[in-house]
Each structure stands twice: as structure tokens, then as C-alpha cells.
């Protein structure tokens, strides 16, 4: 965060049930808030869309991994058999490509999977063992049953008082101010 850091990370509101949360999320987005996030113990259908998050670049990351894996796989085998030490093995040609398919395939999958997981972590900015939200004691229920919506202070429209009152207008169970 550049410049003078706002005193809050954001304002957090807990909602009683899923419909209220979805409703609130939509309203917040409609109200022009952009850096908004919701926290739920399980994936809630339509929630990410509600706060304006449509699609992720992850598939492309995975595809890249797959291609790299495939090239490494076949390249390595061809290099080893035909360049690194060419040898007559059972009368087979140096480039016995059919024999190279299994490993090529395996490495394709491996590359893709590694990129998928590390891509996931990277895009989600994980790991973050420390996070301001954890300052809110109530927040530990987010991993069990509680449903939260948070407007972050980095939002252009963010204003401590207004935003708070705006959230309170959404019929939350409770509203918390999240310090750093």
C-alpha cells in the first residue's frame, strides 16, 4: 500500500445466512465498491460473481505447465538416446519415439499439476499465515459456519464512517473494524 496507510485494513460484516450475504454482496458491488471480498466456510455459488470476480487466469497457467512438461519429457529422452550417448540397443533406432511416449505423457501431467497448485497459491497470494482479518476473533468461525463480507480500505470509495453505515444497512449480524 503506497502513501499514508489508512488506519484500517477494512470493515467486516457477518451475515446470518447465505441469501443475506449474497444480497449484501450484490448491493455492495452495485454501490460501486470494488475491493470487496467475502469469506465463507464453503464455496457459495454466485458469490464471487456477486462481488465482481468473473474468471481466473489459472487454466492458462496450467496449459503452460503441460506444454513445458511435454517438451522436457520428449526432449530429454531424444537427447539422451540420440545425442548424449547414441547406442545400439536391441537393434532399435536411436529415436525410438514410440518408446518415448509414456514418459512424455507423465511429465506433461506432472508439469500441469505443479503449475496448477503453485499457480493457485501464487494467484491467491498464499501463504499468508498472518492476515489482518485474523485480528477479528469472530473471524475464526469463517472456517466453520460464519459468513463474512469485507470492504477493504484500499477501495477508492472507502470511508470509515460511510462504509460502516453502508454495511450496517445490509442487515448484518454484526460489523467489525479490521485493524492491521
Amino acid at each position: 500500500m503506497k502513501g499514508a496507510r489508512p488506519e484500517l485494513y477494512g470493515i467486516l460484516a457477518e451475515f446470518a445466512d447465505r441469501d443475506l450475504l449474497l444480497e449484501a454482496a450484490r448491493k455492495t458491488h452495485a454501490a460501486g465498491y470494488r475491493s470487496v471480498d467475502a469469506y465463507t466456510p464453503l464455496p457459495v455459488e454466485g458469490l464471487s460473481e456477486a462481488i465482481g470476480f468473473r474468471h481466473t487466469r489459472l487454466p492458462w497457467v496450467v496449459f503452460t505447465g503441460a506444454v513445458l512438461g511435454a517438451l522436457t519429457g520428449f526432449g530429454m529422452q531424444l537427447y539422451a538416446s540420440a545425442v548424449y550417448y547414441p547406442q545400439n540397443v536391441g537393434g532399435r533406432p536411436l529415436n525410438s519415439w514410440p518408446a518415448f511416449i509414456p514418459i512424455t505423457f507423465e511429465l506433461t501431467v506432472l508439469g500441469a499439476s505443479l503449475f496448477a497448485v503453485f499457480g493457485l497459491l501464487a494467484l491467491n497470494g498464499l501463504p499468508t499465515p498472518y492476515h489482518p482479518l485474523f485480528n477479528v476473533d469472530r473471524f475464526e468461525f469463517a472456517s466453520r459456519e460464519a459468513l463474512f463480507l469485507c470492504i477493504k480500505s484500499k477501495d477508492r470509495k472507502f470511508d470509515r464512517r460511510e462504509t460502516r453505515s453502508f454495511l450496517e444497512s445490509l442487515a448484518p449480524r454484526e460489523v467489525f473494524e479490521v485493524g492491521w
Partner: protein
Amino acid sequence: MQIFHRSTNFLAKLSIFGSLFIAAGLAGAAWEIYQSPWTTQVNVPKEQPVPFSHEHHVRGLGLDCRYCHTSVETSAFAGIPPVKTCMTCHSQIWTNAEMLEPVRASYRNGRSIEWTRVHDLPQFVYFNHSIHVNKGIGCASCHGRVDEMPITWQVNSLYMRWCLSCHRDPKPFLRPRDQIFNMSYAPPADQAALGERLAKEYHLLNTAQMTDCVTCHR
């Protein structure tokens, strides 16, 4: 409630992505050790019971390699001179040099001197000197400028990789047969052409046989 301190975020990320670099670093280090003189003994002069100087005998006195290493042209083993060979001269000159006492002792009581091997190939490598010198590989190509070594050391790693570098393409190293034992031989400007010609002459054009496993391992 917070469990971790702020700093842990950075540390956590570092630990994941940094670990890759750490692993790479370790591998690199291992590789370096494997290349190092400590492992390969390259350029490490070997302690000898008698500090025999090739420099003195070869360059100084101009002895031919074959004067001592008699079987280099005929046998797998180049031959290490029997003490008698030393005594042919040293019964006349330096007859009471302190340094040479072990030699005289050995000759007196018939117990061989235990030299330390400088070029020591693994037991599963069957190296043959005679074929190399007969195929135009000079002594210095592998042993280096022995005539400049007061105490002998190894100048090449003797790793299989190193052997192969020549077995796959001997042309850059080939010499005319009369230059094999010439320590100070320098390849001519047209070594490319010469190598081509000699390779044909020495029947080394097809290197398949030379890079075949059992050429060295049985």
C-alpha cells in the same frame, strides 16, 4: 486471533519459492566438488618415496620416454622402470646422493620401491597404451607436459567424459607417428586437414568401435 507474526508471511513465501533455489545451489555445490582437484587429483603433485623429477630427466637430460617406459608401444602397460634401470646411471653418478638412498637400498636388498600411482584408472577400465601411441596420440596429450613437472601430477580428470571427448572425435588430437614422444609438439595450423588425413591413415574415421562400451569395459 493471530497465531503468527507479520514477518511470517514473507518467510513463508520465501520458504516455498526459495527452497527451489536452495536445492539448485546444493546440487551445484556437489557438482563442483565432483569436478574439484580434491576428487580428480588434477594438478595435485603426489608424494613419492623418491622425488623423481621428469623435468630433470626428460628436459634436462633429454631421455626418451621409452628409455624407462619400455613397453609403451607393445603392451597395455607402459611399464615402470625396474630399479636396475635407475642403477645403470646411478651406479656411476650421484652414487651417494642422500635422495637416492631408497633406490640403492632397493637394489641392495631386492625390495621394490613402492611408488604412488599418479594416473590411476578404476579396475573396470581396460586401458591399453600401445594402441594409443600407435594411433597417433602423443604422451603429452593425456599426461601433459611431463617434461615440465619436477614432481609428477595428473593434468586430466580421467573421467569417462574426458576419454569420450577424444574417442568421439580424435582428429584434433592426432599426431604423425614420429611426433608421439615429442613433449613440446604443437599441433600445426592446419591440424584440421592433418587430423582428417591421419584419421584416414590410422583407420579412425568410423568412431563407432571406439565409443563402444567393451572397448574399455569388460
